[in-house]
């Protein structure tokens, strides 16, 4: 094994090769495909860091010959650390490059970003989309990347700053162009909001209350006080549960019951609805039964959505109700996976603070439910005859009304529309149902796009072009 300068030069060459590839790759992607603005900013940042790492390496190699061996070891260690930072960026770059605007549900992503910017404290936020090979939705935690970027920025001040208020959401590549299950991005966006709130230098009052409630809950376990590692581990579990409930509630505030239906579909896809799993808290997630109980509680008592969907009766809604009626005494954990004792303080002390926090930062959900009640019939009439939903008079329907009507229609009336257009036999064909689901998703997406274009046009008429551009990035 090489040592001293020879080893440093070897490592420097490896790092140079990686940095050079990243610099060129990011430059090429931004030129060859169309991306959301957020992805473009991320490519520019990565390109700049890779370039400056190369510059720094050249400088370090030049002076290494005049340094004592201990300092050469430090340069080598630093090169390895920078290489690992580029490796982290590397894991983002390819999935971002794959998510050009033709491979993602761009209107839904744009709508979700608009909703995101309406949340208190999230003005000016953007989301870069990534496509993952896993059949799972993720929010790539960005807090650490941002913290790392800040430190890298101090170590290499010539590099561009990490784009402010940038989040990352991953979609399974197979679901990229779809619509209904992609409503899960609202939950994933919640993780981004939570991370931003938790790293704010002046946290809002409800977030401070939540942090204090967590602290109080963990202090009950006096034996843990003596072991800092175990204490951090317990905190990590509670933090994961907290974020999941926070993200679910925020998604419900923004997009209504369609999110609950989408989550049921995803859980079914992942096999999380079995008798055992539905009541089991894991290290990362609260039990599905508890999560759906929270959904029903919000839809019933936190807004007017439950009455707005009173006459819609898909199996998904029945399942929500069935899960919400499961007694909390049945909630459990896998043996030696999670301390069961954490569940009670989480439910009693922390969850009420999560509800308060979401209520404090999210827009009121009741007007969206009322618009849905008024616009649903018009939207359904369009879907029944196979056309993109639009209003016969006035502007296009509200996007949240479109999403919820289309989802309810998909869950309750898909066989009818297949039968109407393709005959009775086709209604029993999986292939035909899949084909018509895709059509329904396309019409829904187009209706949302129309609604956004119309809103953009109205803002332009009212405020002029500059104000309109600002409102899209700084709502």
């Amino acid at each position, binding site marked *: 094994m090489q040592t001293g300068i020879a080893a440093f030069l070897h490592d420097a060459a490896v790092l140079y090769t990686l940095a050079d590839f990243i610099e060129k790759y990011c430059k090429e992607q931004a030129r060859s495909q169309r991306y959301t603005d957020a992805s473009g900013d991320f490519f520019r940042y990565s390109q700049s860091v890779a370039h400056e790492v190369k510059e720094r390496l050249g400088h370090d190699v030049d002076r290494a010959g005049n340094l004592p061996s201990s*300092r050469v*070891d*430090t340069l080598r*260690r*630093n090169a*390895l*650390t920078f290489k*690992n*930072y580029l490796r*982290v960026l590397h*894991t983002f770059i390819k999935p971002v490059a794959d998510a050009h605007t033709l491979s993602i549900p761009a209107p839904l992503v744009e709508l979700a970003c608009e909703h995101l910017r309406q949340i208190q404290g999230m003005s000016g936020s953007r989301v870069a989309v990534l496509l993952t090979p896993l059949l*799972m*939705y*993720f*929010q*790539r*935690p960005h807090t*650490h*990347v941002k*913290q*790392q970027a800040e*430190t*890298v920025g*101090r*170590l290499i001040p010539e590099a561009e700053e990490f784009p402010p208020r940038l989040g990352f959401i*991953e979609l399974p590549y197979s679901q990229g162009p779809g619509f209904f299950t992609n409503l899960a991005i609202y939950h*994933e966006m919640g993780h981004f909001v939570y991370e931003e709130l938790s790293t704010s*230098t002046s*946290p809002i009052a409800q977030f*401070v209350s939540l*942090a*204090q409630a*967590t*602290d109080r809950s*963990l*202090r009950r*376990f006096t*034996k*843990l*006080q003596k*072991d*800092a*590692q*175990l*204490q*951090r*581990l*317990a*905190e*990590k579990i509670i933090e*994961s549960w907290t974020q999941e409930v926070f993200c679910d509630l925020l998604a419900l505030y923004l997009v209504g019951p369609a999110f609950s239906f989408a989550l049921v579909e995803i859980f079914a896809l992942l096999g999380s609805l079995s008798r055992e799993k539905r009541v089991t808290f894991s290290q*990362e*997630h609260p039990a599905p039964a508890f999560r759906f109980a929270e959904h029903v509680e919000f839809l019933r008592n936190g807004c007017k959505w439950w009455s707005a969907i009173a006459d819609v009766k898909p199996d998904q809604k029945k399942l929500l109700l069935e899960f919400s009626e499961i007694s909390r005494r049945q909630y459990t954990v896998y043996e*030696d*996976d*999670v*301390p*069961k*004792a*954490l569940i009670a303080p989480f439910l009693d002390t922390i969850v009420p603070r999560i509800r308060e926090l979401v209520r404090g930062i999210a827009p009121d959900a009741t007007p969206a439910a009322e618009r849905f009640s008024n616009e649903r019939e018009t939207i359904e009439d369009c879907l029944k005859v196979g056309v993109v939903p639009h209003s016969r008079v006035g502007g296009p329907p509200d996007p949240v009304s479109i999403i919820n009507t289309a989802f309810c229609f998909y869950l309750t009336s898909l066989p009818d529309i297949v039968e109407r257009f393709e005959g009775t036999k086709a209604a029993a064909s999986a292939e035909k149902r899949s084909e018509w689901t895709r059509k329904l998703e396309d019409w829904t997406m187009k209706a949302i796009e129309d609604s956004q274009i119309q809103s953009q046009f109205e803002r332009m008429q009212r405020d002029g072009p500059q104000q309109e551009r600002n409102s899209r990035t700084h709502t």
Partner: protein
Amino acid sequence: MTPIDLQDRAQYLSLALFAQEVVSVLIEYVDEEKSDNLDAALNKALSSLKGAESSSVSSPPRAAAFTSYEQLRTLEEVWKRRDRDKAKRMILEVLRQPRSSKAKPAANSLIDLFSKLQDQALWNFEQPRPVSPGVMQRLCKLA
């Protein structure tokens, strides 16, 4: 849903970068007599080390390092109790009297300690170990 593996590995890299920053300002101080960023970096290190001993887990503001299970485990793997005490003592020595004759030897010792921490964080980033069943059993028993 979050990809836990990346999140946990990121904790180690954040710690490696934190240690690198401390080592960099100490080397500038020892080799080039520069102390522009010395106070800020050492104060962050000191408050992080103190925070690692605190029983409060959730109240902001958060320290720059050792706030997570992974980072705390790395610290405990590489520094013994006496190393932590020594590091805190030497940080104070450099902060209080950067021009005294004892300050530079103290800074050199700190460079060694934080370099070891950086090495361990890089190793754990490369070879992350999940929480062992034994640790989780202990948590389940104590909670």
